[in-house]
């Protein structure tokens, strides 16, 4: 037990020094002095609860994806049956209640219709399920419902694009070192350090930015609009700002078909309207979009058209003359800020799915700095007081224990830096638990040595027995902690995981320092001094 060949000692010290050295850059940076660039730089990242910053969890709203799919399906079905030979006439089309239903006028054509529609669906997921469920009710009524597997698949695909869009928008804000991670099928985690007020960020991320231009249906009477009744082929869209409304009704009827979508933009900038100096957003279409826009405006001179953003009307100006240059201005009740925000959103593209903030945790930088400073002071005072107590209780062996403890703390930091992990407040709790466990190991050993001495064993034999007999309990205690830590890491969330990571690292380093290193020092001392009695 007390046999330590030289090569083993060299290895132990090398390992210790490596880990401690890895902790140096992190400690250095607390003093806020920059670490020289030419040196390797392993760093412990401080969690947002310590460093200050925002953690935002976004989730896709599947209902919108489902609605969109039904709308697209309606268009596909319409064009299929129109092009069929012989033509199939369908009627009573409804896309409400999360499903698409229609009647085939000639019941003899039901099978043929099914043949036509089937290729519009594809397999989704591993179970062989399809993305649409097709049923025929009452002989001739088709009911198409998007299946959950299909919606999940669509959400998943949309989220891939959404993550990119989110990244572009955050970059446009100029925030430093953001972390954007897709989580599960329908979530995105955004972490931005050191942000004082995340409100701008959140409203930017929450904006779907789906831009549409649709013709206003001037045949609708204001009373019908107020009651939500739209003429056939039109729909009612509310105004974004009630004060923009015409004639006291905060909504407008627009034609469902024949509009232009805003996904053909090449640029969007905030600018000022030349006459009124109001903030507006100038947009530029790509060639295809520009041509469509020119056609729409040429055919509808002197008619109003609505600019719709995320299902709300921004404004409904008159088309005074054809707009042929492929660029236009969007007016609405903007401030410079909101116009700028919309420009960023339009530039980065529309989100293919609505995102909602379902969790936010923001810590102001002042509070974070306060926590770090107080945490360090408490750690320092606690360690000093603990060292005094342990040395007073165990003398020389207490000194070994304290040395081991300090090395242990540095090693935990070092390993965390090498593994590039993040230290959070619960992580500090894990730190405290580890220190407790490490001290306990030395207490167990030293008490056992005392006992063995009291039974009349010789010095060397007592030390040997002390380490041997105490090791069993230390081993069992640490294994149980490892079991707990691994389970916490696997099944816990956020804070509990941060705790578990530090605990796992700490268990390994504390066994190494509190058992192996102190035993080596004790062995060296015994060999060198050959004591006949122990002060313990």
């Amino acid at each position, binding site marked *: 037990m007390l046999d330590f060949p030289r090569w083993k000692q060299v290895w132990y010290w090398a390992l210790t020094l490596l880990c401690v050295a890895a902790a140096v850059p992190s400690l250095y940076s607390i003093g806020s002095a920059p670490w020289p660039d030419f040196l390797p730089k392993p760093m412990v990242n401080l969690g947002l609860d310590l460093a200050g910053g925002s953690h935002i969890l976004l*989730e896709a709203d599947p209902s919108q994806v489902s609605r969109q799919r039904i709308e697209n399906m309606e268009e596909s079905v319409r064009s299929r049956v129109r092009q069929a030979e012989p033509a199939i006439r369908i009627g009573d089309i409804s896309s409400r209640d999360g499903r698409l239903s229609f009647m085939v006028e000639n019941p003899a054509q039901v099978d043929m219709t099914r043949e036509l529609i089937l290729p519009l669906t594809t397999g989704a997921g591993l179970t062989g399920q399809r993305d649409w469920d097709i049923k025929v009710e009452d002989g001739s009524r088709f009911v198409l419902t998007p299946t959950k597997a299909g919606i999940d698949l669509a959400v998943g695909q949309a989220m891939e694009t959404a993550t990119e869009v989110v990244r572009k928008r955050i970059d446009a804000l100029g925030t430093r070192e953001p972390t954007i991670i897709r989580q599960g099928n329908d979530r995105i985690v955004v972490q931005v350090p050191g942000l004082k*007020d*995340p*409100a701008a960020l959140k409203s930017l991320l929450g904006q779907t930015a789906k831009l549409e231009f649709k013709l206003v249906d001037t045949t609708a009477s204001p009373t019908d609009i107020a009651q939500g009744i739209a003429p056939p082929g039109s729909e009612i869209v509310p105004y974004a700002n009630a004060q923009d409304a015409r004639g006291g009704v905060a909504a407008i009827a627009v034609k469902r078909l024949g509009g232009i979508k805003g996904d053909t933009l090449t640029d969007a900038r905030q600018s000022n309207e030349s006459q009124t100096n109001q903030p507006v957003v100038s947009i530029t279409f790509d060639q295809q979009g520009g041509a469509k826009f020119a056609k729409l405006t040429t055919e509808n001179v002197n008619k109003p058209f609505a600019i719709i953003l995320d299902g709300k009307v921004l404004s409904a100006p008159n088309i005074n003359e054809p707009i042929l240059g492929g660029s236009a201005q969007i007016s609405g009740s903007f401030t410079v800020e909101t116009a700028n925000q919309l420009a960023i959103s339009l530039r980065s593209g529309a989100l293919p799915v609505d995102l*909602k903030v*379902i*969790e*936010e*945790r*923001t*810590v*102001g930088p*002042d*509070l974070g700095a306060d*926590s770090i400073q*107080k945490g360090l*002071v*408490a750690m320092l*005072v*606690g*360690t000093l*007081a*603990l060292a005094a*107590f342990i040395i*007073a*209780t165990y*003398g020389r062996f207490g000194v070994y224990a304290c040395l081991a403890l300090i090395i242990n703390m540095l090693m935990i930091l070092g390993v965390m830096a090498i593994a590039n992990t993040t230290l959070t*407040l*619960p992580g500090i*709790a*894990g730190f*405290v*638990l580890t220190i*407790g*466990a490490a*001290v*306990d190991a030395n*207490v*167990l050993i030293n*008490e056992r040595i*005392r*006992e063995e001495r*009291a039974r009349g064993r010789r010095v060397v034999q007592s030390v040997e027995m002390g380490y041997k007999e105490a090791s069993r*309990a230390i081993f*069992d*205690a640490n*294994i*149980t*902690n490892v*079991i*707990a830590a691994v*389970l*916490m890491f696997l*099944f*816990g969330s956020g*804070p*509990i995981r941060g*705790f578990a990571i530090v*605990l796992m690292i700490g268990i390994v380093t504390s066994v190494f320092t509190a058992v192996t290193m102190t035993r080596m020092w004790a062995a060296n001392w015994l060999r060198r001094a050959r004591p006949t009695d122990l002060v*313990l």
Partner: protein
Amino acid sequence: MKLLKLIPDNTNIHFLKWRVPFYTVSLLLMAASIALVAVKGLNLGVDFVGGQMIRVTFEQTPAAPVAELREQVGALGFGEPTIQEFGKPNEISIRMKLPEGSEDKPELAEQMARKITTAIRAAHPDARIDGVDSVSGKVSSELFTTGMLALGLAMLGISIYIWVRFEWQFGVGALFALIHDVTLTIGLFALTQMEFDLNIVAAVLTLIGYSLNDNIVVYDRVRENLKKYRRMPMPELLDLSVNETLSRTVVTSLSLLITLVSLLLFGPDVIFGFTAAITLGIFVGTYSSIYMATPILIWLKVNAGSFVPTETEIDRQERLARER
């Protein structure tokens, strides 16, 4: 040099003489804790019920205008806020749970936080927003499930390991002691209505870790003594084991208390509740390893036959010396 010795050698305190009264009291306390949780309920934080909490510091005034804030936030129509001091009189937290029937509005928590922050900023220019937490109902129920799952599985996993390493009776004893610790801690949270959030779950996990350390040290000594003194009656043997490890128990607990008290006195305000829970847990954990985990071995009929003794060279010399 004279070293500090808190516990004299060869103590012989009859801890287990009081096992029945202590067990009775503990069982009653556990029942009371469960009843308290059932009747008063836990003051669950926004982590677990959803809602928002913001922390505000008023930089220009010595004390936060609590009554005024209560009115301003209440006027937003989300319900009555809970306003608490947070360290200093000018630092407060404003907490608000999700209103009933908001399951299908995942963005509500964030909107509440945003409106409240805006209102406070507008009315009090010197208000510094130090932190915003908003958790939707969906996320909070996930956090609750995963937190409790992690806690339960950790306890179960530990007990299974102890069963494998020792005997099934020890596993049952450890599990019972852990349940005792957790129940009493949660009972205390129900009694004081202190906020119970994810950080407190981490505190309970830490407490389990400490308590378990104690259990294992005593159990390890029991196992050793069972091999050594094969004819000693169980109560006596358990008393001996507890006494032999008493000095270690005291020194370790004191060491931990030193670190924890310094965290309580000098540490960040944010983890005060957390540290307080662990400090309390040290006492509960030490008590439970002596009075909950140990006597149960008598009732579960552990005996020397549970372990096959293995005699080491040193043990043999010792035995020969005794026989001589």
